[in-house]
């Protein structure tokens, strides 16, 4: 039995008090750990998905919505824009790359993105099986899509209208899986990639392009197709080879200009950043949104909430520090006789001081480590329960350096809480204590 063993014995001796103090600290540490995991993993994910994209061009509406829908594939698109915009921007010398996106359909909750092979390259996607699409009605599956749906090469599937997966099915234009991507850790993992032409075809024919805000469960009331038609239809797709077979089915779309949902743009020169957004925003149908600006705005909005929760967690931690202090202080008052006896048995004051500090540190360390475990458990459980969080790339299996700082801070606080009670050992009058406390 050593003094360290005695520290443990004292903690065990008042087990309920010890457990409550550990619980209190566990809660505050877990809250902080959850915050750290959420904010670091989400902001990293945000950053990774938006890397290399300088500007997003889409239909007028909320710029944040445009960014969320076209980069992160989480919100509903703002609407559609004329296909002509692609050529207009590609001819701009300050623009390095334009990747068109046609959104609006999904398969079992996974979004079907009509785009070009450059989209896959942008995220560093590597074909794990099969090949990249070469024509319409061919699809390349993201790693997560392939895993979750169990789809293999050569299999056919039918996209459904809308992004929620309960829209009507485009049964007449099935897709064939021609390739499966290796995991990238980006939004690409949960997308189904196909040529833009497939989306046009799925929506009946060449003319009406991908339907942007296609959350409507069925093909009713597609009024958004009506307001941006300028009469000069079919102008851009003369060379396109589209399947008109289903045209009757999509009569509601009857004759529209070819459209896409959004364009991802990389600048060639910094001139573009100065000129392009204002130029685009002057167009009646278009808006330009910079991912960096919008995400900063979003994070600063979320940041207020995160700061509030963090302040609460820190307050909770201070409370648990105070609780450890009160527990040790009152316990040591009752143990003054023990302390005097330890001195009589030959223990030096620094050794007893260390033994009391150790008691605070053991409490804090138990609470801190338990808090980290609970924090990761909660994040893992949240990711397992809510698919959206998993889509965001949230995982309980990754540790952040900031957690070490939290654990050290908690342990330091435990030591600090024990400090004042422990200092008493240097002042205790052994003879008087032994005489008094009978």
């Amino acid at each position: 039995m050593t003094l360290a063993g005695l520290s443990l014995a004292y903690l065990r001796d008042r087990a309920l008090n010890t457990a409550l103090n550990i619980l209190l600290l566990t809660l505050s540490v877990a809250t902080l750990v959850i915050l750290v995991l959420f904010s670091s993993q989400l902001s990293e994910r945000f950053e990774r998905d938006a890397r290399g994209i300088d500007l997003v061009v889409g239909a007028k509406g909320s710029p944040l919505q445009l960014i969320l829908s076209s980069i992160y594939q989480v919100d509903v698109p703002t609407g559609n824009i004329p296909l002509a915009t692609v050529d207009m921007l590609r001819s701009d010398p300050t623009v390095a790359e334009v990747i068109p996106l046609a959104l609006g359909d999904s398969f079992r909750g996974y979004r079907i993105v009509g785009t070009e092979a450059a989209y896959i390259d942008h995220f560093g996607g590597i074909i794990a099986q099969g090949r990249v699409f070469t024509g319409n009605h061919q699809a390349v599956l993201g790693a997560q899509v392939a895993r979750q749906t169990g789809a293999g090469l050569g299999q056919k599937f039918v996209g459904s209208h809308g992004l929620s997966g309960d829209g009507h099915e485009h049964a007449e234009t099935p897709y064939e899986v021609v390739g499966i991507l290796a995991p990238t850790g980006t939004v690409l993992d949960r997308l189904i990639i196909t040529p833009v032409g497939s989306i046009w075809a799925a929506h009946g024919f060449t003319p009406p392009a991908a339907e942007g805000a296609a959350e409507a469960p069925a093909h009713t009331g597609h009024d958004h197709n009506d307001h941006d038609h300028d009469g000069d239809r079919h102008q851009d797709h003369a060379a396109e080879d589209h399947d008109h077979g289903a045209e009757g089915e999509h009569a509601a779309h009857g004759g529209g200009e070819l459209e896409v949902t959004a364009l991802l743009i990389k600048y060639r020169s910094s001139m573009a950043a100065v000129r392009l957004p204002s130029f685009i925003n002057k167009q009646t149908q278009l808006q330009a949104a910079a991912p960096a600006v919008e995400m900063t705005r979003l994070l600063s909005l979320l940041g207020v909430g995160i700061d509030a929760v963090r302040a609460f967690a820190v307050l909770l931690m201070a409370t648990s520090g105070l609780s450890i202090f009160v527990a040790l202080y009152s316990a040591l008052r009752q143990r003054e006789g023990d302390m005097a006896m330890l001195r009589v048995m030959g223990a030096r004051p620094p050794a007893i001081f260390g033994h009391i500090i150790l008691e605070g540190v053991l409490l804090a360390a138990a609470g801190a480590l338990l808090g980290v475990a609970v924090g990761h458990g909660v994040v893992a459980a949240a990711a397992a329960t809510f698919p959206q969080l998993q889509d965001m790339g949230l995982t309980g299996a990754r540790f952040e350096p900031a957690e070490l700082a939290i654990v050290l801070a908690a342990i330091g606080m435990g030591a600090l809480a024990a400090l004042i009670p422990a200092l008493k050992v240097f002042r205790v009058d052994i003879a008087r204590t032994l005489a008094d406390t009978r």
Partner: protein
Amino acid sequence: MTTTAEPLIEVRDLRHDIAGRCVMAAPAFTALRGEHTLLLGPSGSGKTTLINIITGLITPSAGDVKIDGKPMSALPAAQRDQLRRRTIGVVFQTLRLIGALSVRQNLALAQTLALGRSDPALIDRLIAQVGLTHRADARPRELSQGEGQRAAIARALCAQPALVVADEPTSALDDANAVAMADLLLETADATGATLLIATHDNRLRERFSRTITLAAPGVSA
């Protein structure tokens, strides 16, 4: 260690004042190894003060104490603690067993503090000697007064100190138990080779000890 010829306790001209008032004045005496000594005196005669000076817990106002040849009262605090740790075991009337630990763990802690290691075989032997084998894993609060007293004696002896100091070890006991306790102290001390110094106002113990020092209440003696 030191030679056996040197007295284990040597007290000379010892006096202690608190706030200018003399609370204890001890006659000069020595105790050799194996010379069990009874320190008798009425309440207020300063027995506990003398015990505290001998064990190095307080510094006397005048005079000096040598324990095993070393000047306890003149040593700096750290060396005083070391001398006490190595040479002296203490039994208090209030026992001061550590409540969070079992009897066995109390002994193990005392041993580790004194020797830097614990000797389970010796602990078991001592527990058996004081008749607590069946209570070895009990907490102090689960023990009777007599059992607790025996545990405290075993603890004082478990580092095999040269000197065991007991302050009023029998005052809470009835006649039969007081004598039995004194016998147990003498027996276990002899078994471990320790010398006893027992401070008491309990005349029942007088017949058990060949050597008695009497402490008079200060102001009365001179």
